[in-house]
């Protein structure tokens, strides 16, 4: 028995691609709508319907593959045959032995290089809701309802090699993959909402042995925390089994919130999927020119973004936060447009954990930071304006043009509605005239003569009394730094 064990993990990550329509049908690929309203004959598997491949889905898959240093190869769709009510044709169209992307890698920040075995396109299934069982569980259900809105949504399944050796590394891999997907606009990649789904193949081996032992596939990992905990739990389970002279069984297990993995019962014939080439689709063979076009259209990737953020003075952790929020393009863009790098990074880290932040325009963010650094807005005001900019960006995205929240439906009015200076004006954040501030400072000195004496005697911390008074008088809108400067001027005069 080996003295120490190492963890061996390979991850299979399914991501929903951010297309407007489904993989093989022109039905809208959209969630949250009434059941069975985003379906065509193809999504329902109606007799006589035929699939046609979505070019955009292929291009997104190619872009992800290129970002993961994969080879883009000719590929063929196969049918994977099995019965399930939420599979409208009772087969899934998927790439089998000829995936579009193969043999790449992903560098985990601060960690090692994880091999990518393949990434392939396939269609998602619909959604089954079990009726009558406790908590919508299968057990005890009296029936089920099926909604095919999700059926046919394009999925890219990204399969890593078993190169991951810890829960932390698995988590970092998924985070980095997510950042890449966000940077490419390939997916919104939300684990909690299921637009990114992670299955972990977990085994253990004696440290340094290099062997591959029996693995278990763990599903239902809805957060990075679940992923980490499941890996640690499952690895411990394997180690305990080996320690007891037993061996794990190769199987699929389900992570549940009780902090354990559970075996899934499977049917005897479940494995015989009878793959064969999908005759309704023709082979996919991207040529070099197309691949080059996709590559040329790719935005900057997270690793490069982090390096540039670092050059802007961002700490590694802050850079990671900014990249993780998908804010690197807007932050770097604002800095390129002349905004103060430190202030921009600080805003992004402290004030932009918000919906709509990724919608911000780099030039507008730069304008905002400039308003602040030039003293026209205080830090507090700048934050308020920033929050408003994000909120309006979200509203502008969701509102149909005709019913937008804007005072006018003209484009220039829309642009004005997002302009930081205009928002500041709307909120009454006019930069205070110097003489107004001076009057307020003088009033504060007059109101606290004892404190003023102490301040003049060199007790710098008493300044807070006057700054507080001015802030109170201006309901927090005064620039604290300007007040401090005025106090010093009065003292030294």
């Amino acid at each position, binding site marked *: 028995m080996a003295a120490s064990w190492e963890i061996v993990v390979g991850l299979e990550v399914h991501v929903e691609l951010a*297309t*407007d*329509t489904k993989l093989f049908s*022109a*039905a*809208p690929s959209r969630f949250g709508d*009434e*059941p*069975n*309203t*985003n*379906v*065509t*004959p193809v999504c*329902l598997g109606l007799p006589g319907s035929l699939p*046609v*491949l*979505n*070019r*955009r*889905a*292929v291009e997104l898959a190619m872009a992800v593959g290129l970002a993961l240093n994969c080879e883009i190869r000719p590929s*063929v769709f196969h049918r994977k045959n099995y019965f*399930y*009510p939420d599979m409208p044709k009772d087969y899934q169209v998927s790439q089998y032995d000829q995936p579009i992307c193969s043999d790449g890698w992903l560098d985990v920040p601060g960690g090692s290089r994880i091999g990518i075995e393949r990434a392939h396109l396939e269609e998602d299934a619909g959604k*089954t*809701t*079990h*009726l*009558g*069982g406790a908590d919508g*569980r*299968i*057990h005890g*259900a*009296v*029936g*089920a*309802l*099926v*909604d*095919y809105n999700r059926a046919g949504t394009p999925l890219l399944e990204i399969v890593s090699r078993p190169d991951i050796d810890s829960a932390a590394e698995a988590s970092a891999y998924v985070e980095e993959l997510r950042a890449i997907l966000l940077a490419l606009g390939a997916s919104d990649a939300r684990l909690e909402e299921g637009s990114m789904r992670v299955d972990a193949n977990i085994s253990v081996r004696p440290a340094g042995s290099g062997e591959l032992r029996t693995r278990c596939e763990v599903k239902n990992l809805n957060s990075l925390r679940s992923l980490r905990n499941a890996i640690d739990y499952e690895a411990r389970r394997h180690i305990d089994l080996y320690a007891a002279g037993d061996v794990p069984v190769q199987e699929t297990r*389900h992570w*549940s919130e009780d902090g354990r993995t*559970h075996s*899934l*019962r*499977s*049917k005897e*014939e479940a494995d*015989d999927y*009878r793959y064969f*080439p999908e*005759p309704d*689709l*023709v*082979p*996919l*063979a*991207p040529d070099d020119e197309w691949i080059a076009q996709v590559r040329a259209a790719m935005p900057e990737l997270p690793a490069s973004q982090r390096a540039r953020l670092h050059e802007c003075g961002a700490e590694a952790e802050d850079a990671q936060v900014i990249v993780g929020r998908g804010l690197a393009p807007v932050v770097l863009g604002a800095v390129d447009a002349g905004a103060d790098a430190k202030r921009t990074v600080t805003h992004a880290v402290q004030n932009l954990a918000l919906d709509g932040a990724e919608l911000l325009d780099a030039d507008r963010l730069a304008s905002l930071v400039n308003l602040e650094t030039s003293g026209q807005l205080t830090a507090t005001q700048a934050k308020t304006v920033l929050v408003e900019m994000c909120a309006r960006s979200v509203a502008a995205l969701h509102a149909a043009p005709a019913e937008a929240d804007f005072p006018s439906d003209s484009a220039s009015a829309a642009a004005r509605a997002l302009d930081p200076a205009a928002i500041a004006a709307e909120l009454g954040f006019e930069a205070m005239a110097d003489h107004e501030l001076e009057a307020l400072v003088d009033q504060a000195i007059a109101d606290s003569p004892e404190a003023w004496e102490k301040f003049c005697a060199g007790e710098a911390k008493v300044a807070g009394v006057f700054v507080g008074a001015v802030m109170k008088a201006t309901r927090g809108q005064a620039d604290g730094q300007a007040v401090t400067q005025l106090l010093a001027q009065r003292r030294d005069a």
Partner: protein
Amino acid sequence: MSGANKSEKRQVRQQEGSPTHAASREEVTAISTDQVAHVARLARIELTPDEIEHYTGHLGRVLEHARELEDLDLADVPPLAHPYPLRNVFRDDVPSTPVDRDDVLEQAPAASSGQFEVPPVLGEEV
């Protein structure tokens, strides 16, 4: 011209004998009742034991005939999946109008709450 495209290596197999002869051979080798029962489960078709016998005979006769392929050396011949060699057929990512849900659910054996209703789903469960 004629005969010129005849593959030299291709072997010619004698035609089968009488159906009775073929039947007696297939019972031994082509497909068993257990295999037919397994295939019926995979294909989700309920069969009685008599029907399994019946289909074992039917499938056996066809598979017995398929044995003629055993004699063909096809190692150098790639498989052909599509009769016409098209590549890269796509659709633009532009949504179309979905079908009317009521039209579709009207044709469903059972529906409720805008969804297709089925008996309980057993199978994979923790």
